[in-house]
């Protein structure tokens, strides 16, 4: 695994190995984060490409002693926010293939009954997450997967601190309700 400072230094020298390393280390991570925000495969691919096209132009001015992920995360988050604003649409749905694939993957490892249940829970949670309003989903992901503080989320999404707290509370209530409803059904 290449150090961030080496990647930045090589990129700033104009060497293509540096950019290849940047893609190797972060392309998958950026895609996954974009996917967790947008819950749509093609949209996440578009955003990933946009993030790295920006990186091509901006990495020349990047301070080599700073870590790359917070910067890439910020660019990804902003790109996803813009994407959501430009393509306002109804809540995306979780593809059935994904749910089935997760079930098969889980069943292949260890106790099939336990894993089928776990996969079913996961599928319900995925569906509930996908049905959240996009900005609320972004707040949840930044809080629970990126482990950012309320203040950092507010700064990143350009929202007041109170709004971040409210969004988090509402999103978690909605997730609990959706999962309870699914359990009753």
């Amino acid at each position, binding site marked *: 695994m290449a150090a961030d400072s080496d990647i930045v230094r090589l990129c700033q020298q*104009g060497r*293509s190995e540096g*950019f*290849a390393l940047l*893609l190797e280390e972060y*392309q*998958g991570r950026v*895609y*996954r984060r974009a*996917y*967790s925000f947008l819950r749509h*495969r093609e949209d996440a*691919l578009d955003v*990933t*490409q946009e993030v*790295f*096209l920006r990186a*091509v*132009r901006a990495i*020349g001015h990047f301070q080599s002693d700073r870590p790359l992920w917070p910067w890439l995360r910020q660019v990804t988050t902003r790109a996803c926010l813009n994407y959501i604003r430009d393509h306002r649409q109804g809540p995306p749905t979780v593809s059935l293939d*994904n749910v089935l*694939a*997760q079930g098969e993957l889980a069943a292949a490892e260890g106790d099939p009954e336990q894993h089928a249940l776990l996969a079913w*829970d*996961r599928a319900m*949670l*995925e569906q509930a997450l996908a049905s959240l309003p996009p900005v609320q989903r972004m707040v*949840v992901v930044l809080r*629970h*997967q990126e482990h950012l503080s*309320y203040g950092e989320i507010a700064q990143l999404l350009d929202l007041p601190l109170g709004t971040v*707290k409210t969004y*988090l*509370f509402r999103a*978690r*209530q909605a*997730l*609990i309700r959706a*999962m309870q409803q699914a359990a009753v059904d």
Partner: protein
Amino acid sequence: MRCPGDELLQMFTEGELDPAAGEIVKVHLRGCSRCQAAVARYKQLLWDLEHPEEPPLPPELVEQEHRLMQAWAEEHKAVRQRRRALRLVPAWAGYGILWTRYVPPVERFGRFLSRTGRSLLASRVPFARRLLEGRR
């Protein structure tokens, strides 16, 4: 004591409450099964959210990597050209200084030309006259 609201219970589960408020909620939880159940649900939810199933990486990322490498090559070709042009700036500046310092100003150059022209004409006019007279 009345049950704390859901927002407070969520913050308690996350450890975001200040210590004094946290103590009050803790005391309440000892005697309230409804709030205990709510906190258990939140704990489960937070655990599930913090351990997500990573989506598989799509094969299109490989193709995208090639496109991005091309974009990088094009951008850096342009950057190299700009740098090369900038490197010539001192040479152009020196050439400019030499030109203004050692090449005679336009006026002087013009005067030089007109003087040469006049003398050439003066030298050629008698010759032309002689030629014409000879023909006659």
